[in-house]
Each structure stands twice: as structure tokens, then as C-alpha cells.
């Protein structure tokens, strides 16, 4: 694959250096701050489950109480472990059940979380973290075993399909049907509002707009159903959800425990498209990625989204910049190249002359910049219209560019993109489209050889050049400043605004995370 664009390796190296320079201050921020969701994620990893009768999860009740008493800066783990020793539950109860009893008592105002916290609490926390990490490891090993047992997706790109009925019990049969029809990855879309909830709902859910809630139980139900169909098909079908929004780290934890295989997890999506506070996001993001790294989960980044608000040609380089930043943050959090489902999309206005060549140039640039990453190639959405006949055609050209440029994960486009969340038949028509194009094109990438110095190479060089320039400006200033200025997706998001800032704290001197050293 490499080399079709004749990219300058020095420029590529320079781009990576600049991305690191731009990202480093943000990593420092993340290393020195914690959030309510990071703390809740730890308790979830410790095994604390369930919710109060109003549906507020016990992790929220417990963290809220500790924060009310102690503030957030010291973290919740030591106070919780310290208190736990005093509120032991019944014999034979699990550690998680113990935590739940603690949370219940705390919620009733019956627990005081004062310190000092001695070595015993610290040791208990580290033991609990070790157990948590081995649960993540076990899940990862189960995945690897099942892939060996059932077999893996037969080819690249993996075929990635969405279900979005708003009811887990409609989603499940549709996901199973999609798998039977050839999907390698099922993404369960969650309700429009979930990312702004500062808690993870509990239990199986049958409501939501344009998707139902991401809950641990829904994860479990769907994964079990996909295990069933994987066995039937002799091919391990992957499951995806979102580690995004105000509960990003908790989502990652639940995904790691319930064997989700990929998670949408972008470093800036929540900031730009959900107006979540930038610092909250970067802190949450780092911990969520550490969990993904350990759990062997592939992340999917969200550069496609920029092209729905910004222009896919004029701002193509912002995609490249964001990919490089996502790569830097991911590596820093311990993710391997094979886990970097960096995103990009076929969003150029189809009325633009040469759009197909521009798309191939962009897609190939991503491919050659990140040769070992399982790139996620996303279909046209912005320029889809109610003309569904045209829609199916655009999706076909998208599939073709995916084949010509060796993409890894193909998010299947739907002809009804501009109309409704996908119908059963839309998915079937879309899959037929993918199957036809991939099979018909075969190894046509072999015949796709951009002319040296020609249109495609020139375009790729130009985008890379613009990306380096932009990175230079960002590194000279700051990433937070660039985000505030509307660099990405034309959304202006200053660091002191946005949702969830009140759930962030600078770590105090005595802050303690039992996962330090355990997670990458």
C-alpha cells in the first residue's frame, strides 16, 4: 500500500512531532486532574453496580456524597476504601456488594468519609484495582478465544452497521439479522440525550430518540445475542458503543467488563458537538483510553463529524490534524496502533468536479499516514438528500473508494441517511451495495496508481502541508486556544465553558489512583 502518494517522510515525522508538542500540555492537564466520572469509573471497575429506586446509580450516590464531604480533589477511592472497612456487609457478599451497601448507607447520610486514610485503605484499593484489571484481562482473553473459536471477519474492510431503533428489544433482532446478512461490527446507537447525562442509566431500556440508552445491561444483552449469532455464523461479530459524553470513562469501564469490542472515543467530539467542557473531556478521555488499551478495545475517533459542519475540501487538513492528535493521545494512554480506528469520511459535495479523486486522495493520505491503524471510513451524510436513488449511488462510490484505498472498517452508508434512522430494508440494500462493490472491485486497488505528480498526489501533499502548517500554529499557541477559536468543525469552545466543568478538580497532593502503574 505504502508509497502511492510519495509522501515526504520528513514532513510526516514533523507532523507527528508537532502533534506531540500540541498535545503534551493537554496530557499534563489530564494527569493532574480528575473528574467525577473518572472516580465513578474506578468504583464501577471495583464492582459497584445498581441504582437507587429513582434510577440514580449507586456510583453516583456514593461519589456525590464523598465529594460533598471531602471535595473531589483527593479522589473517592481512599475515602471509600477507608469507610468500607467500617461498613462490612454480610459474610459471603462480594466486594461489589459491600460497596453497594456502603453507597446505600452513604446515600442515607449515615457515613462520614473523613480521613486520615491509612495504608490499609490504600492496599485494599490496589487489591481491588488488580482484580479489576484482571477482569479486563479476562474479558480480553475471552474475546481472543472466541475469535479463535468462531473465526474472524473474513476480509478487510470490516463491515460496520448501525442499529438505532430506540428499543433494545428491537435492536437485538435487527443486529442479529444484520450479522447474518454480513455485518462484521454492530454499532448500537444511543439516545440523543445520553451524552449530557452525568450518570449511566441502569437496566434494559426500550426508550430513547434515534437510539436507546447505553447501559450495562443493554451491553450484556446485545453481546450475548451477538455471541449467539457469531457461533451460528462461525465468525466473531464485534459490538460497538460510545465512550463519549459526560460518562466517557464509565462507558469505557462497562465496555471493558461486558466485552464490547470497539468504542467511539474521540478526544474532541464531546467538546465540539456536545458542548462538554474541554478539560472535563480531556481528563475523561485519558482514563477511558487507558481502560480501552488494557481491555483490547479498538477506539473509533470522530473526525467525520467535522466535515458535517465544516467543508470537506477546505477543511480536509483539520481531519488530518485531529487524527494526529488522536494518535498522540492514544499512544500516550497506552493504545497500540492496531487499536486506533482513526476516522475519516466521504463528505465532499458530490456536485464538485473531481470529487471522487479528491476523496481518494484524502482516503489514501489517511491510509499512508497511519499504515497500521484500523482506519474507519465513513459514508456520505451531509450531502445525502431525500433522493434515495442517488443516495444508494453515492454510497456505492464511497464503498468503491474504500476498496481502492484499503480502508479497514467500513461504516455502511444508508440511502435514507437524510430521511430516517435506518430501516431494516435500508440496511439490507446497503449491505448488498457493499457486497457488490467490494466483490466486483476485488483487488482493483492494484490498478489504482495515482499518476506521479498528478492530481491525487498533489492534493494529498497539499492537505498534508496544510495540516503541518495548522499544527505549527497550534503548537505555537495552544490546543485549548485552537479549540476555542473554532479550528475544528467551526465550533468555538472556550476552556472555561461547556457542560461538566463542575465535575472536574485539580488533584490534591494526597490524590491517589490505585490504577496508576496498572493501567498503561
Amino acid at each position, binding site marked *: 500500500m505504502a508509497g502511492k502518494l510519495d509522501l515526504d517522510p520528513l514532513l510526516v515525522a514533523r507532523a507527528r512531532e508537532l502533534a506531540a508538542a500540541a498535545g503534551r500540555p493537554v496530557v499534563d492537564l489530564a494527569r493532574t486532574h480528575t473528574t467525577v466520572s473518572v472516580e465513578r469509573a474506578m468504583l464501577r471497575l471495583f464492582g459497584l453496580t445498581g441504582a437507587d429506586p429513582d434510577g440514580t446509580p449507586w456510583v453516583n450516590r456514593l461519589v456525590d456524597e464523598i465529594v460533598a464531604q471531602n471535595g473531589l480533589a483527593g479522589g473517592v477511592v481512599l475515602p471509600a476504601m477507608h469507610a468500607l472497612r467500617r461498613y462490612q456487609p454480610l459474610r459471603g457478599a462480594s466486594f461489589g456488594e459491600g460497596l453497594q451497601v456502603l453507597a446505600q448507607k452513604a446515600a442515607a447520610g449515615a457515613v462520614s468519609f473523613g480521613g486520615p486514610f491509612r495504608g490499609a485503605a490504600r492496599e485494599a484499593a490496589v487489591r481491588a484495582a488488580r482484580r479489576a484489571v484482571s477482569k479486563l484481562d479476562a474479558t480480553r482473553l475471552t474475546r481472543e478465544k472466541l475469535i479463535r473459536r468462531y473465526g474472524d471477519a473474513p476480509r478487510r474492510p470490516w463491515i460496520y452497521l448501525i442499529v438505532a431503533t430506540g428499543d433494545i428489544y428491537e435492536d437485538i433482532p435487527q443486529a442479529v439479522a444484520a450479522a447474518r446478512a454480513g455485518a462484521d461490527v454492530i454499532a448500537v446507537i444511543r439516545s440523543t440525550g445520553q451524552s449530557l447525562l452525568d450518570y449511566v442509566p441502569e437496566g434494559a431500556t426500550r426508550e430513547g430518540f434515534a437510539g436507546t440508552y447505553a447501559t450495562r445491561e443493554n451491553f450484556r444483552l446485545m453481546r450475548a445475542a451477538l455471541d449467539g449469532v457469531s457461533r451460528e455464523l462461525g465468525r466473531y461479530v464485534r459490538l460497538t458503543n460510545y465512550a463519549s459524553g459526560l460518562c466517557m470513562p464509565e462507558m469505557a469501564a462497562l465496555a471493558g467488563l461486558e466485552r464490547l469490542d470497539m468504542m467511539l472515543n474521540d478526544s474532541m467530539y464531546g467538546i465540539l458537538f456536545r458542548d462538554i467542557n474541554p478539560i472535563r473531556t480531556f481528563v475523561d478521555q485519558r482514563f477511558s483510553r487507558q481502560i480501552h488499551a488494557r481491555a483490547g478495545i479498538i477506539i473509533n475517533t470522530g473526525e467525520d463529524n467535522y466535515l458535517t459542519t465544516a467543508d470537506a475540501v477546505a477543511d480536509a487538513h483539520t481531519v488530518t490534524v485531529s487524527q494526529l492528535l488522536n494518535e498522540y493521545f492514544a499512544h500516550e494512554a497506552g493504545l497500540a496502533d492496531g487499536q486506533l480506528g482513526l476516522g475519516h469520511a466521504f463528505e465532499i459535495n458530490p456536485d464538485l468536479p473531481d470529487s471522487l479523486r479528491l476523496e481518494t486522495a484524502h482516503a489514501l493520505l489517511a491510509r499512508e499516514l497511519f499504515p497500521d491503524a484500523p482506519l474507519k471510513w465513513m459514508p456520505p451524510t451531509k450531502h445525502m438528500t*431525500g433522493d*434515495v436513488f442517488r443516495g444508494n449511488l453515492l454510497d456505492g462510490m464511497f464503498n468503491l473508494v474504500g476498496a481502492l484505498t484499503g480502508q479497514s472498517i467500513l461504516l455502511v452508508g444508508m440511502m435514507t441517511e437524510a430521511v*430516517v434512522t435506518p430501516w*431494516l430494508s435500508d440496511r439490507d440494500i446497503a449491505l448488498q451495495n457493499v457486497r457488490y462493490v467490494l466483490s466486483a472491485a476485488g483487488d482493483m486497488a492494484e490498478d489504482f496508481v495515482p499518476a506521479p505528480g498528478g492530481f491525487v498526489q498533489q492534493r494529498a501533499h497539499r492537505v498534508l502541508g496544510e495540516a503541518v502548517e495548522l499544527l505549527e500554529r497550534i503548537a505555537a499557541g495552544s490546543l485549548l486556544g485552537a479549540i476555542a477559536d473554532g479550528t475544528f468543525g467551526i465550533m468555538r469552545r472556550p476552556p472555561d465553558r461547556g457542560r461538566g466543568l463542575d465535575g472536574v478538580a485539580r488533584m490534591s497532593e494526597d490524590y491517589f489512583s490505585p490504577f496508576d502503574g496498572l493501567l498503561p
Partner: protein
Amino acid sequence: MIRPYGDTTGDGMVQTSFTLPVPAGRRADGAALQLAAKMGMEPAMLVHSRAMGDGHTFFVVYGRVRHAVDLGAVTVAERDFPLLTATEINTAVKRRLRRKLAIVGACIGTDAHTVGIDAILNVKGIAGEKGLEYYRELTVTNLGAQVSVPDLVEAAAGADAVLVSQVVTQRDAHLHNTREMSAAFREAMPAHRRPLLIVGGPRFDEGMAADLGVDRIFGRGTTPREVASYLVHRLAGEPS
């Protein structure tokens, strides 16, 4: 009673598209929604409208249709004869008829689409099944394309069955030609000497046989074995 399925059981969702002879604009959009309403779509979402020249507009409409389908009332041209194997077919003809079955096939009128009738008649067949020529006990005469009705009636004298194909449907050409053909046979010979009249083609409604004056209609996706089984059923009775 069942309803169309978009993404949830019972949601009743359908898609439709059509052109109206009105210039594009709000009035055209309103006209499209009126038509959708008359088709039973409510609510209807007009998701696409596009001017085609000065006087026509094309529309795509999505929406919930109020109709339900009564599965009990579905009229199906169910196969009312057993599907036999090649051996069973040959044996049945041999045992019960004691002579070969004579079949004449043609594409009549100005229709020159022979691929369909050839698929039924020629050894090569279709969908992995051999055509009628392959059956030892069937004698097949394939007259080819653009056969006039009088020529067909002449060639069919003494045949057990006449198989006619009609693919062109514009202005109901297939219906006209079929009616002309069946009338000619009724005219030319008494009912008891008339061969079995079978027509086929991709756009026939299989329920129209009586209306067209033929014994049977075969639609898209027909395979030779179905036809052979039907011939045995009608001409050599059921195997006991």
C-alpha cells in the same frame, strides 16, 4: 393482520416515488402530499422533490400507511400440483399416457425475447434445471420468436400443449397477444381437441389465466420442472 415494517413492528412505513405533471414548487409539493394521502399515507414526509423540465416534478415520499394486510384474504396462485422429479415426470407420461407428450413453444406477436422460453424449453435450462427438451418423454418443438398466431395455430395441430412467451408489456402488448392467441385456438378447433394453453413472462399476473382464456400463467423465476410437473398434472393425471 400485518403492517409494513420500517424499523419497528407495526410502524406501517413505506416509500413511494412518482412524477406529477405540475411545475415544481409549493403547490406541486402539496399535490404530492395529497396523492400520498389518497394512497393512505399519513403522516407523509415529502423528502425529495425535483423539477424535471418546466412542467413536471418528481417526488419521493416516506410515511406510515394506514392500511393493514389481511393475510387470510391473500390470493395466492399457489402451486396446486405436486412438484415432480424428472424421473417421476418421464415415468408418469410413459405409464399413464403411453406416448410422448408433444409440446410446441413460441414467442408470439412481434416479441423477440426468446431467452425466457428457451430457458424453459432448451436442454440448457435455467437455475440449474434442464429444460423440457431434456425430458425423454416430451417432444419439444420450439418455433422461436415473432411467430404469428395463425402460424402457431397451424404448427400446434396435434400438440398436447402450447407454450407461449410474452415479455414486452408496454401498452399491455402481452395481454393483447395472449387474448388473440387463445381466441384463435378457440376458433380453430373444438374444445376437446384444443391443446393446453400456457403463457409465461416476467410481468404477468398469474391470477389472470381465466381472463386471458388460457389454462395457466407462469411468471418471473419459473423453472422448467414446475412447467413439466404442471403438464403431467394436467395431461397425465396424478401419480397414484
